[in-house]
């Protein structure tokens, strides 16, 4: 069936899914003024929710300080990490949070234009999002002199991607917006100084922007009460795989993997992939680790595997993904991922030696160090963690051409 795009079920959660009335954040932002918004944001300790975890306040301050005739706010809605779908839920069910967040960002750094880079796969959202933006224009939440504040002009337009995972990387996203191949740039210079068309640009994840109106309206102190010392606030987790209740959950940072498995009613769980294909795969012995920037970090993707799953097949699926999605610009990523996939296929056939496997792991570490962007830096994570954490299953069991080492 064609998917019904909205659920009538009201979600609840400590921060993002708590009560919020559209425009409250914008009104409060005007009241506070630029400096105080930045202070409030700094006090909240908000970090980027896309996975990298850079301080949002720092990003905003750098672009606020930049001197330029134009500035841009870009909302990164190129959600492509396998197992991630929180942005879909936010955009469909809580667009007011995302757009209010962009308006506040525009007000704070003095940008007049906001761009939502929506992945091509989400084109079906376009009518509802554009309808929502039109309503905001009618209510004077977008356009000229927003809420009668002299000189507060801001507009949002939506641009579509065309099916490229790497465009979720902020500089690749900017290249794509400028009409080029979505190949990541060298950094520095960072987009906060030299971004879209060379102007200072903030690129924030959908979830980061959606947190902003709450923080501004309810205060950094309120936000900070959630989470842990090093990871403030809450996080949306997109849970999929072998469990009875997959879906999007808003939980405190610091939630243990075990606790999450209970919430989603996962049984006979063997492994949890934290952070999607570019994240790490954790075995049962590590389920007491907590989900936080200081421990097991994730942009939100949690994929659960039960006892019946073949870990090597899962790894092959991940490596095929990276071989396809590598932009091919830098050698470590382009060639490295192909070699790692080849390695997985050789293990499958039983054609390997342990020194070959060790060479591949070393290659993985080289890719982590030498790749130009996050794709190649993180793609070996699942390769290394699956081969290390599930070596009994992969190497010691009876496979074609291999002697049974362990019963």
């Amino acid at each position: 069936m064609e998917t019904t795009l909205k659920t009538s079920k009201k979600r609840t959660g400590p921060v993002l899914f708590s009560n919020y009335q559209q425009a409250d954040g914008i009104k409060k932002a005007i009241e506070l003024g630029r400096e105080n918004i930045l202070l409030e944001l700094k006090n909240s300790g908000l970090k980027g929710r896309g996975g990298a975890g850079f301080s949002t306040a720092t990003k905003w301050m750098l672009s606020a300080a930049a001197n330029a005739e134009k500035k841009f706010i870009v909302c990164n809605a190129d959600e492509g990490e396998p197992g991630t779908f929180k942005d879909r839920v936010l955009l469909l069910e809580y667009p007011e949070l995302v757009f209010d967040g962009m308006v506040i960002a525009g007000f704070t750094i003095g940008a007049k234009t906001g761009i939502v880079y929506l992945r091509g796969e989400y084109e079906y959202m376009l009518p509802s999002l554009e309808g929502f933006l039109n309503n905001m224009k009618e209510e004077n939440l977008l356009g000229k002199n927003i809420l009668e504040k002299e000189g507060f002009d801001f507009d949002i337009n939506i641009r579509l991607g065309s099916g490229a995972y790497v465009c979720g990387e902020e500089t690749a996203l900017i290249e794509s917006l400028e009409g080029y191949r979505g190949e990541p740039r060298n950094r520095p210079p960072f987009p906060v100084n030299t971004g879209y068309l060379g102007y200072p640009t903030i690129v924030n994840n959908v979830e980061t922007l959606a947190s902003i109106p709450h923080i501004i309206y309810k205060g950094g102190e309120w936000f900070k009460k959630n989470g842990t010392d090093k990871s403030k606030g809450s996080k949306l987790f997109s849970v999929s795989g072998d469990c009875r209740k997959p879906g999007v959950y808003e939980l405190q940072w610091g939630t243990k993997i075990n606790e999450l498995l209970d919430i989603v009613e996962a049984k006979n769980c063997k492994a949890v992939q934290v952070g999607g294909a570019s994240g790490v795969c954790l075995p049962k012995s590590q389920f007491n680790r907590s989900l936080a920037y200081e421990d097991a970090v994730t942009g939100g993707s949690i994929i659960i595997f039960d006892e019946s799953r073949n870990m090597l097949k899962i790894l092959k699926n991940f490596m095929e993904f990276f071989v396809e999605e590598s932009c091919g610009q830098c050698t470590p990523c382009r060639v490295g991922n192909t070699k790692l996939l080849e390695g997985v296929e050789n293990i499958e056939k039983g054609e390997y030696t342990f020194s070959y496997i060790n060479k591949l792991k070393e290659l993985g570490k080289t890719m982590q160090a030498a790749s130009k962007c996050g794709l190649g830096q993180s793609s070996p994570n699942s390769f290394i963690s699956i081969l290390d954490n599930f070596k009994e299953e992969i190497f010691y069991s009876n496979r074609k051409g291999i002697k049974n080492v362990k019963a």
Partner: protein
Amino acid sequence: MLVVEKNNLSYEIERMIKEYGNDRQSLLQILQAIQKKYKHISDFAQQEIARLMNIHPVEVYSVISFYSFLSTEPKGRNIVRLCKTIACDMAGKDAVEIAVKRELGISFGETTNDQRISLEYTNCLGMCNEGPAMLINEKVYTHLDPEMAVNILNEIK
């Protein structure tokens, strides 16, 4: 291509460039629009876009070749993209894949003889909690089983 068709295409490209602007940052939007309307971006279209935007045709081709939703070869009237990423794979993508191939008599990467459907794989659609999932043009279908998927495909024109 007939001269009349060529003229129509040029006219259409001119109209799109008027709508989106002839700055470089409009290129991707123009390509997306052409792809949507003509199901591919032909050599002739690439040259026309390049001429009107004052860039080299190779620049246009390089952008098309980068994005998986753009193509230089003609596609069917409907593009079906089945998600093959891990969550959909675990939810039963293989069974859907086999049923669809058998029903249409083509493999993934091919187009039916009547130009009705092109079958393609795609990476994660962001429907991981509702797999297996597929896109038909821009619409998304979830919780598929083999029979349901085939019925949906048989209904599209």
